[in-house]
């Protein structure tokens, strides 16, 4: 696999405060990596280091095999960065601003107009080229920020909370865009919105107190998926349990069940068939997200909070089967 970015043991101190501890990240082509973490976990610090905005106190960063610290100009050629606050000049129009960004990244001559056109089209800014950035809504300014990050077709795209301040339709569009970018480039995006990570990312790192608390190759592996079902009449659990792929069934109140199945199979179809055969009156069948939230809370809140959460869960769920 084509490794685009390799950061090794990054440390970063602000005076005595250590904002990043031994952070290592590897990004391959086709990866959309979600960098999760509560506020102050070191997400922005890490991203600033990966993009050369901040020098790490120790550690090394390689972009496509080029060392960012020794050879910054060459390495930065392949980086597109959208910081937390889009770095836009509000007194320029979208076109003026994007042309400048294109030039800064070494695009010259006739290609500038093409690059601007392409970036605007991909971020849904086709009609706003001549408008002043200051007059655009927050969501559109965010898009201009994204357009700036992708204008030079970088291999590594780093987005710090790209969907903040957008309306649901825009969020959907931006996620589509990120998915599309992920097919050809490597994307790292930071967020604290869990569903976002689950819908968009294929890899997850969780940062907590400056260190990588959770690091895995794929989202699917980290917990078995669940299905929530509800029937109008009481059911017999045994026939549910016979369906292949089901790992565990927990009964909830009002004839509801939480069915945990392994990630390789999807028993939804089978559950519906059994429910119809048994005349249980199927009311609800919802694929639930894998327990990423739980993973996140466990990691970030520590053991104590984990126990509390589990206790609470048991109370709510009644008797586990």
């Amino acid at each position, binding site marked *: 696999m084509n490794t685009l970015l390799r950061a090794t043991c990054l440390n*970063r101190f*602000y005076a005595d405060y250590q904002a990043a501890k031994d952070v290592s990240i590897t990004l391959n082509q086709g990866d959309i990596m979600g960098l999760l973490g509560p506020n102050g976990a070191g997400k922005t*610090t890490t991203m*600033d280091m990966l*993009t*050369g*905005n*901040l*020098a790490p106190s120790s550690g090394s960063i390689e972009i496509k095999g080029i060392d960012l610290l020794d050879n*910054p*100009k*060459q390495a*930065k*050629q392949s*980086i*597109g*960065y959208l*910081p*937390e*606050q889009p*770095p*836009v*000049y*509000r*007194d*320029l129009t979208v076109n*003026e601003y994007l042309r*400048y*960004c294109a*030039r*800064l*990244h*070494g695009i010259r001559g006739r290609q500038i107009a093409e690059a601007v056109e392409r970036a605007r089209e991909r971020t849904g800014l086709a009609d706003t080229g001549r408008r002043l950035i200051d007059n655009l809504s927050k969501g559109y300014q965010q898009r201009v920020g994204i357009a*700036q990050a992708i204008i030079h077709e970088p291999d590594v795209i780093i987005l710090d909370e790209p969907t903040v301040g957008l309306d649901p339709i825009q969020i959907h569009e931006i996620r589509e865009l990120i998915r599309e970018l992920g097919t050809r480039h490597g994307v790292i995006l930071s967020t604290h919105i869990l569903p976002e990570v689950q819908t968009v990312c294929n890899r997850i790192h969780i940062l907590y107190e400056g260190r990588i608390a959770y690091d895995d190759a794929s989202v699917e592996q980290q917990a078995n998926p669940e299905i929530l079902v509800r029937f109008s009449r009481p059911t017999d659990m045994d026939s549910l349990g016979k369906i292949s792929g089901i790992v565990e069934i927990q009964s909830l109140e009002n004839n509801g069940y939480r069915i945990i199945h392994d990630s390789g199979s999807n028993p939804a179809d089978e559950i519906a068939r059994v429910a119809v055969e048994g005349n249980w009156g199927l009311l609800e069948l919802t694929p639930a997200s894998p327990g990423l939230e739980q993973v996140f809370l466990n990691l970030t809140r520590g053991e104590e909070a984990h126990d509390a959460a589990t206790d609470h869960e048991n109370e709510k769920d009644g008797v586990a089967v």
Partner: protein
Amino acid sequence: MIHTIAAHELRRMMVSPLAWVVLAFIQFLTALQFLDSVEEFILNQPRLVNYENPPGVSDWIVAPVFADVAFMLLMVIPIITMRSLSAEQRDKTMSLLLSSPISMTEIVLGKYVGTLYFLLIMVGMICVMPLSLMLGTSLDIGKLLASASGLFLMLAAFSAAGLFISSMTNSPAVSAVASFFLLFALWLIFWTNSGGQKLAGVIEYISLLNHFVPLLQGSISTNNVAYFALFATTFLVFTIRRLDIRRLQG
């Protein structure tokens, strides 16, 4: 790349009302000075005829006007440079430059050259007034050029200092006030040069004005040009170092 940043800098200055207001006011105040000098020259003309080698229009008008303008611009330059780096840091637009494939030196030089473009416009406009005298009399173009380049060099030195101060703070207002005091102090050194004999030489060398006056009078010497070049270079190097340190220390 330096030109890209410089052109952008100039464009941003020109889309803000500040630059236009500054240009308009300077033009207005210069005009007052200019008219004053012209009047004085006309009043004194009859007496000048008696001298063997009388000072011409250029000496009477150009040099004094430029000297006055220089002092006025000492207050204006901090306003022009105040935004260049501090606003980038305040508005978080600096990260666009920092994540682009450009070196810190190119960023600083780009910013600086952008300011120089603006200064060229400003000095050009100031020169139009003495040039208008050519409608009625002959002018020593060499002397005018010397005065204009003297003014430009002086302003370029001011701007480098202003740029450095601007890299130290996130607030344009603080940057403007601090640059003004720095420049004013360097200017004042000339006037306070009444202290001990030992310091006199040093102070004389540091003072901006001491190197500016000969240029106004039409003598462009390596000594004075080198002084301004060194002055600007020093502050530019400081600025680059300052930004590097920001990146290292965060």
